[in-house]
C-alpha cells in the first residue's frame, strides 16, 4: 500500500473511534475499544445508535452508503466500517 492509503486508514479509524467514544457511553477507551467486534453486540449501540452512526459516516466523508451495504456484514465492527469508508474514498 502507498503511504497515502496507510495514513487514511489510521485517520479514518481514529475518527470513527473518537465519534463512538464521544457519543456512546461505554467502559472502553481509545486503547481498549475492540475494533473487530460488533458494537451492537458489545452493548455500545442500540438500534437508534446504528442509524446515527451511518449518518455520521456519510456526513463526515461525504460518501454515499448504499442500502444493501447497511448490514452487519459490511458495518458490523470498526474495522469493517473503516474498510467500507476507504473503499468509497479510493475506489
Amino acid at each position, binding site marked *: 500500500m502507498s503511504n497515502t492509503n496507510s495514513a487514511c486508514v489510521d485517520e479514518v479509524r481514529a475518527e470513527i473511534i473518537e465519534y463512538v467514544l464521544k457519543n456512546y457511553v461505554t467502559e472502553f477507551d481509545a486503547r481498549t475499544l475492540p475494533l473487530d467486534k460488533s458494537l451492537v453486540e458489545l452493548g455500545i449501540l442500540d438500534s*437508534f445508535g446504528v442509524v446515527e452512526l451511518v449518518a455520521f459516516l456519510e456526513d463526515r466523508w461525504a460518501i454515499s452508503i448504499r442500502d*444493501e451495504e447497511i448490514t452487519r456484514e459490511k458495518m458490523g465492527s470498526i474495522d469493517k466500517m473503516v474498510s467500507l469508508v476507504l473503499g468509497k474514498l479510493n475506489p
Partner: protein
Amino acid sequence: MCGIAGYLSRQQAASRDPLFSMLKSVGHRGPDSYSGFVEGGVAMGTARLAIVDLAGGTQPAVSDDRRVAVVFNGEIFNFRELRAGLEKQGHRFRTRSEVETLLHLYLQHGEGFVSLVKGQFAIAVWDGRGEDRLLLYRDRFGIRPLFWHRNAQTILFASEIKGLLSHPAVQPRLNAHAILQTIRFWTVAGDTSAFEGVKQVPAGHYLKLSAGEECLVRYWQLPVSAEVEPLYFASDEDYFAAFREQLDASIRRQRMADVPVGSYLSGGIDSTVVAARLSRQIDGPLKTYSVTFDDPDYDESFAQDLVARRFGFDHHACRISSGDISRTFPQVVWQAETPLFRTAPVPLFLLSRAVRKDGLKVVMTGEGADEMLLGYDLFKEVAIRLFWEKRPESKWRGRLLERLYRHLPQYRNRRYIQILMDFYRTTLQGAEEDPHYAMAVRWGNGKAIENYLSPVLREQAAAYDPCSALQPMLPPRYPDIDHVERAQQVEVATLLSNYLLASQGDRMSMSHGVEGRYPYLDDDFVAFVARLPRRIKLRGLRDKFVLRHAFGEEIPDQIRNRPKVAYQAPEMIAFFENGKMPDYAEELLSRERIQETGLFDPGAVDALIAKGRSATLSRLGMRDSVAYLVILSTMLLDELYVRSKLGIHSDIETPNNMELV
C-alpha cells in the same frame, strides 16, 4: 380520597404537632380538611379530599373503647355490601362512610379483612388492645401509595415520602439501589423507595409492625393462566357480549362518588371506550380532558377531537410546549419523589391542575388495559422473537418486527431495515436460559446506562442484581408460564405499579387533589379478564382484540384500528433550546455538581450534554433520553430533598387547622 400519615412512638406520648406537620406535607392530596387522632403513643390522621359522604366521613374511625383506629386513602367500591353484611352480624354504624366500615371489618375479621375489600386503597390500622400494633395495607395494583420508616423509637407511615421527611426522625438520603433499579427496569421494584430507610408497602401486601415485629404478608397476586378457570364461549361474539357487560359494570362501580366524575382522553382506544361507556351512564355531557403538544411528533389532538365530537363530550385540551416541560420538571420531580425516565408525568401534572380549576375531583382513565389485555408492543415483540428464533435465517419472520416499530424514527427510513434486523437477530437466543427473555432488549439498554454511573456506584452495580428486588413480586409459578405472560407479570410489578400508577398517575393527579379511577383495574373486572383465552386478548399481532371489537361501530374506525402509540411527551430534546439548557439543569449537571454529588461520572455526563446541545435530529435516541432524564431527575431529588429539604412546595391552598377526634 386524601393523604394519610401517622406514627407510633415506643417511649414518648405522641402529640399533635408532628402529626399536623406530616399531614400538611401531603395536604395537596386532601385540601378540604385535616383531622387526627392522638392517644398514648399513637398519632394518625388524614388530609381529606371529600368525595364520599361529604358530611359524615371524618377520619380516623375510632372504636368505642378508643383502642383501635383506622385511616385510609382511596375508595372501597363494595363498602355498602360489606357494611350490610356487618350490620347483619350486629355492628352499628354512626356514619355512611367507608372508613367506619373498614374499622368494623377489622374488628370482625382481624388482619385478613383486606381480602374482602375491593377498591383502591392505602389503609393504616392501629390496634392498641394488646401490645401496640400498626398494620399497613396497600391495594392489589398499588394505585394508592403507602410509605413507612422505622427506627428504635418510632414507626412512621405516610401516603407520600414527603410526609415522612417532615418528621424530625427521618433524614433524607438517596438510595443507590433505587437508582440502579430505575436504570435497569425504568422503575424501582418491590418495597424499594428512592430514599434510604424509607420503604413502600408493595401492591397486594400488608405489613404488620410492632416493637418486636415486622412481617410482610402477601394477600393477592395477579393470577397466572393455569390458576384460573378458563371461560369457554362458542364464538367471539359471546366473548364480546360478556366483555361489554363486565366493563360497564366496572365503570358503574368505579364511578362511585357524591361529586361529578370526568374522564381523561388520550385519543387511544382504552380511554375512548371508558369515556364512551361512562357517558352513557350519566346525565348531561361528560367532561373530558386531554393533553395536546406543540410538537406534532407527540400530539394526538386529531384523535382526541374526533372522539370528543362523536360523543358530544364537554372537552378541554391542555396545550403543552417544550418550554412547559423543562420549566415544570423540577416541581414534577418533587411531586414524584423518585427518579423519572420519561417526561410524561409533566403533562399529567398540568392536566390535573386544569381539572382542579374546573372544579372536578374525580377522573376516569384507561390505565391498566395494556397490561390486562396485552396491548404493549413488548408482548408482540417477544412473540415475534420467539417465532423468529425457530428460523433465525428467515428474513420475513424478522420483518414482522419492522411492522411493530414502524412509528419509531429509526424505522421510518427503509434503508436501515436490514441492519436493524441484524441488531434484533442478536437478541434472539436465550429463550430457554433467560427467565426474563422478554425483557432482554429493554434491560440490556438499562445495563448500558450503568456506564454513566460514578466509579463508586459502578462498583456497587457490579455486585448488585436489581432482580433480587423484583423476584419476590413475581408469582411462584413464573417459570411455568410462557414468555408473553411473564412479560405481563413483570410489567404489572414494575411499570404499572411503580410508574404508570405512581409517578404518572397518583402522584400527579393527587398533586392537585384529583383522584383517578381505573375501570380496567377493577378487582372483579380483572378476575374476569384473567379467565379469557390468550387469543381474545392477543390474536397474532392484533393486540387488545376484544377491546377493539366488542363495541363495534360505536367506536370510530380510526380509533379502533389505531396502533398502540405509547403515551409520550417530548423527552431530552425538550431541555435544549439553541444549545442551552434551563438554568437549574446547567447548574445541576455541571461538572462540579456531578463530581461533588458522586453518583454519576462527570465525563460521561458532559458527553451526553454535548450530544444534546448539538443534536440535529428532531428526536434523540431512547437510551440517551432515558439516561439524561434519570440523571437530571436524580440530581433534582438530591437538590430538592437532600440539600434543601423540601425547597419546592405544593401550589394549592390547604386549611391551617386540624380537628381532633
